[in-house]
């Protein structure tokens, strides 16, 4: 068996700032994971469908436009509806502290705000994998 951790990194919504998403994608690759990067300006549905087809363990969303309270839960909802409730969600970007509890309630296991070192995201994923097995 040669199982690799698969992570989809996606950017829903309209902002085109993908530096953070690419930085995380690269760090996860360097940590030995297979990272599917779907690019900017994706609809929640396109991200969710890609996650299901790619059979990923994690979906990480990055957003800097402020529409996270709408778009993040939407991805979670579509994944749940289509049988992907076991996929672990996390998010990052410019997200005010007071929005975090709501996103966690919507199914996001972790929210990383600007300045978070990539190693913290890697540690989060490794920890979740350990808890799952």
């Amino acid at each position, binding site marked *: *068996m*040669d*199982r*690799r951790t698969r992570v989809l990194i996606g950017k829903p919504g309209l902002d085109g700032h993908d530096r953070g998403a690419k930085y995380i*994608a*690269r760090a*996860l*690759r*360097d*940590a*030995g*994971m*297979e*990272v*599917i*990067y*779907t*690019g900017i300006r*994706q*609809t929640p*549905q*396109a*991200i969710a*469908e*890609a996650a*299901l*087809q*790619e*059979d990923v363990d994690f979906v990480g969303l990055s957003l800097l436009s402020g529409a996270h309270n709408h778009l993040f839960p939407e991805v979670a909802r579509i994944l749940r509806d*289509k*049988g*992907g409730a076991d996929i672990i969600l996390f998010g990052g970007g410019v997200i005010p502290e007071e929005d975090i509890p709501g996103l966690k309630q919507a199914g996001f296991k972790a929210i990383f705000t600007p300045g978070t070192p990539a190693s913290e995201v890697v540690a989060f994923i490794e920890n979740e994998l350990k808890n799952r097995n």
Partner: protein
Amino acid sequence: MNSRDTLAQRIHRGEVRALARGLSMVENGDPGAGELLHTLFSAIPDHVTIGVTGPPGAGKSTLLDRMITRFRSQERRVGVIAVDPSSPFTGGALLGDRLRMQSHAVDPGVFIRSMGNRGHLGGISGATRDAGLILAAAGYDPVLVETVGVGQAEVEVAEIADVTALVLVPGTGDEVQAMKAGIMEIADLIVLNKADRPGMDQLEAAVAASLELAPEDRPRPPVVRVSAESGEGLEALWTSLDLLLSSTDPELRRLENTRRILRGILGESGARFGEMLLRSEYGSENELLELISGGSVTPYEAGLRLVRVAERMLEEDENQQD
């Protein structure tokens, strides 16, 4: 076993989650993968596999995106396997081919799967063939395979594809010269992409010159100029592709495919059998390595001994049957 049957049935019905799981099983070398393929095998409908290969940055993904649109316009369900390189150091991979095909993500008639090559060197991953069969079993036809950006010798895609398209771009004329022995020979169709760029005439001349050197008895691949980005020349490309696809005999195709599957399986089970023999004769690979470095055995001698053991086993087996 029952859960496998159910997974196979769900794949047959085209359930996305089941199909995605089945693909992961073959990719991971899951012990249940063989059983799953066995269950699906007899019901795999006739289908075509199209390989798209070429150097990095040639525009393979963009061309594939166009190809998906084209087959969708004929209401065919399209399966895609896009292979990217895995890091030889960490095993990680950044799979970005999907980026250029994401416009099809919400189309239920398109299934795209990204794969790391996981150390496999032929330009595809070790699981690409079986993954293609699973997509076909779920009703996807054609199955499109995009290789990692290849150099000169990554020719394995031609082993699994009915038609292989090689994508080249201007500015790679010198590379074409170097490629003529390997990758130029596997192409059934040569696509000169980015036709809007300067250097197209030189590229076409370099391709023509290298095809001059190809063996006489092989059919000359058609050469088509396109711009996948703007759409220019695509109609001519589809005409060439259709012609190639319709000239392959489905019966022959099936037979050839089966022969290759069988050879792959023989290679795998042969390796497994060899390891079993090695353990019974020498204890373990490490113990044999010690004997070899100690000078009492050579690797060749060990190989011959394992073959003799296998022969003796077969003889005894036959004697018992008599």
